[in-house]
């Protein structure tokens, strides 16, 4: 056979076809189930589902051997293009619930009940042919494919809000743990690199509750870019809570409204749920101890809707700048006091309008980070928040109360400030001074830079103490009673005692007919976690009983010839 030129041409042409890369492009969507809000009730409405674009998510082309052929991410419109697809090959498109961009973000949604598997969805295998093609993928809600993408989209919105005011920010890695098996896990940020979201399809599930996802992301943001001294615990918007909790939770709620530009915060539980209007909710118990007040203040500082005493529209940037600078470096615990003080310093022209907004929440003009000169509209003994102690003196009548509840409520903790002028070892002691039922505890912080100081305290009943090598600087002691009795008073001392200062009397002019009883019932018990935990005290009792029975047997086994 003579090999002619046209044979060569046909051969080369066919070869080039098989080597030429083609393009697969498309758009990735997910289905979002919306909440129906009626009065103060909200519930997921499965007849109201829209297709939303999945932005900045990882897209892969996979061959039949499970090899990666090409990869990219969708853009801000959910579009992707894969340009290196071999023609005439069986390829499927896979999309991960993951956003990954170097020096920008690394977020994934995983199934914490199943080996932390990364969620994703697959199209079908289809031959790539010899022409470009468009493959559009949608994550349906019906088979629970869409929740991870809905969660990611809420977080994308929050990050975009930050980028709009600071294009240099680099978000640390974050894992969002969601599963239909997350039935009694709770929804929370763990303080490190995990958000956990409930996924109980017969009860409380949070995958479509965007304000809740953003609220939890707000805690992650505070931890990594600002500072959050929030001690956690259950909380409600009309409570008197610890000032750190009030700010931390109020900020999360406000952020959810700021990011979505929608002040209606909702939480659905299947056919049930509730909502609150961040901006317009009734002022139930306004004040510096109220997360509802904090969220209204922050939202009013941000929004462009001038209503009532709010005539200020700062936008997000001044709030963001205060959070990452002044609030982050504050020498007091993070609260509305530290935030507003720093905001006013950085925005001196807006001071009077800022004061108007805080006054609308029954908060007297904030003059410093410690909130001094508070008007006493709280239960007796709740003030002062901070007390100054001198080294080598002791301070009496530092009292905690559980009038507003236990663990994280106003007056459960009291703060003592002191200054060390000379590097040395100092004894620190907190000793009960009323009765014998309290159990004093303390946490120590150095304030510049603000950091927790490990104390290794020890104590016998009624006393907690330690000896610490301290360097010069300012410190804060956070004092509380882990027995949570109605009223627990302590004497606090730093250094060798040369005199006693009892000037911090806890009586003030507030009279309250609902005075605390002296019951010792403690409802606060930071014992075990929800879920699969060890048995209770019956276990301990049985262990002791068996030990009494068998330990003597152990020692006389030789005599018994066992």
């Amino acid at each position, binding site marked *: 056979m003579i090999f002619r030129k046209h044979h060569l041409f046909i051969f080369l042409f066919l070869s080039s076809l098989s080597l030429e890369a083609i393009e697969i492009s498309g758009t990735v969507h997910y289905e979002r189930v919306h909440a129906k809000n009626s009065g*103060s009730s909200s519930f997921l409405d499965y007849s109201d589902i829209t297709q939303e674009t999945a932005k900045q998510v990882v897209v892969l082309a996979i061959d039949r051997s*499970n*090899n990666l052929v090409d990869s990219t991410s969708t853009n801000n419109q959910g579009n992707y293009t894969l340009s290196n697809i071999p023609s005439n090959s069986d390829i499927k498109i*896979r*999309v991960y619930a993951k956003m990954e961009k170097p020096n920008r973000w690394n977020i994934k949604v995983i*199934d914490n009940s*199943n080996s932390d*598997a*990364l969620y994703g*969805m*697959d*199209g079908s295998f*289809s031959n790539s*042919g010899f022409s470009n*093609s*468009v493959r559009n*993928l*949608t994550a*349906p809600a019906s*088979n629970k*494919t869409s929740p991870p993408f809905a969660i990611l989209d809420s977080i994308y919105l929050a990050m975009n809000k930050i980028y709009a005011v600071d294009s240099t920010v680099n978000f640390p890695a974050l894992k969002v743990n969601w599963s*239909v098996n997350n039935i*009694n896990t709770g*929804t*929370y*940020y763990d303080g490190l690199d995990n958000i956990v979201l*409930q996924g*109980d399809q*017969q*009860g*409380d599930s*949070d995958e479509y509750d965007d304000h809740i996802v953003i609220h939890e992301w707000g805690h992650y943001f505070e931890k990594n870019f600002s500072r959050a001294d929030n001690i956690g*615990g*259950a909380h*409600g918007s*009309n409570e008197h809570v610890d000032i750190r909790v009030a700010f931390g*939770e109020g900020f999360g709620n406000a952020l959810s409204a700021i990011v979505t530009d929608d002040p209606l915060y909702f*939480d659905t539980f299947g056919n049930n749920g509730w909502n609150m209007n961040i901006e317009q*909710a*009734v002022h*139930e118990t306004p004040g510096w101890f109220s997360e509802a007040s904090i969220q209204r203040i922050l939202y009013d500082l941000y929004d462009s809707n001038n209503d009532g005493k709010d005539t200020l529209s700062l936008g997000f940037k001044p709030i963001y700048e205060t959070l990452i600078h002044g609030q982050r470096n504050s020498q007091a615990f993070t609260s509305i006091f530290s935030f507003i003080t720093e905001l006013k310093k950085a925005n001196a022209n807006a001071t009077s309008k800022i004061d108007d907004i805080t006054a609308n929440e029954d908060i007297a003009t904030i003059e410093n980070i410690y909130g001094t000169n508070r008007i006493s509209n709280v239960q007796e003994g709740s003030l002062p928040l901070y007390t100054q102690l001198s080294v080598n003196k002791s301070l009496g009548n530092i009292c905690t109360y559980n009038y*507003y*509840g236990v*663990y994280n409520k106003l007056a459960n903790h009291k703060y003592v400030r002191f200054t060390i002028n000379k590097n040395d070892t100092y004894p620190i002691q907190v000793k009960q001074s009323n009765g014998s039922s309290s159990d004093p505890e303390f946490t120590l912080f150095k304030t510049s830079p603000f950091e927790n100081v490990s104390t290794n305290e020890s104590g016998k009943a009624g006393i907690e103490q330690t000896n610490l090598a301290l360097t010069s600087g300012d410190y804060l002691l956070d004092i509380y009673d882990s027995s949570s009795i109605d009223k627990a008073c302590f004497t606090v001392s730093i250094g060798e005692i040369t005199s006693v200062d009892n000037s911090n009397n806890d009586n003030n002019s507030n009279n309250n007919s*609902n005075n605390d*009883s002296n019951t010792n*019932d403690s*409802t606060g018990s*930071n014992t075990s*976690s929800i*879920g*699969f*935990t060890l*048995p209770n005290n019956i*276990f301990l009792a*049985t262990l002791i009983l*068996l030990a009494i029975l068998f330990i003597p*047997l*152990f020692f006389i086994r030789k005599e018994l010839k*066992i």
Partner: protein
Amino acid sequence: MKLKTLVLTPLFILIGLHAESMTGTTIGHYSKPGAPIDMTYLSNSTDDNKSNRVYDVNITLTSTVRYGTMNVKLTLDDKLTPLSPIEKELTFEISPEQKKYPINLQVSAPEDGLYYIRLLTKIDKGVGSKLRAFAVPIQVGERKKLKRNSLMMKSHLGENISISKAIETVTIVEEK
């Protein structure tokens, strides 16, 4: 009797005595906004009849508010049967004197699995109300996880992935 038997026997007794007993609390944990209610629970198996396990469930609700009305809606998983009629909707009047609000019930389950008693709680103070949901686990024998319609597999990098079916449209782009 060998020393090993002497030491291990009490350990096995303990395990046998306390199988299928679960306890937990929400007190002190980070939580999202909602009704200011905490829950502590204890569920204990009281009957070792493998065909019909019986569980004592003790639930205690606490609240940090001093006044108001706490409403509780109880729902049980389908296969959990209460041994006596239970009120599915409960109301407690909150007062400073009463710090704990108990709910006690006995349930049985015919087969292995992880079941839940769900509580939807609300405190109504007359100025808007918030909700909080809880779930009390009842573990009977082997736990069975709920499944999504997805496949567990390994990615091209060997990591665990959970893959579901997407809705897909494919269009060939006509060459000009």
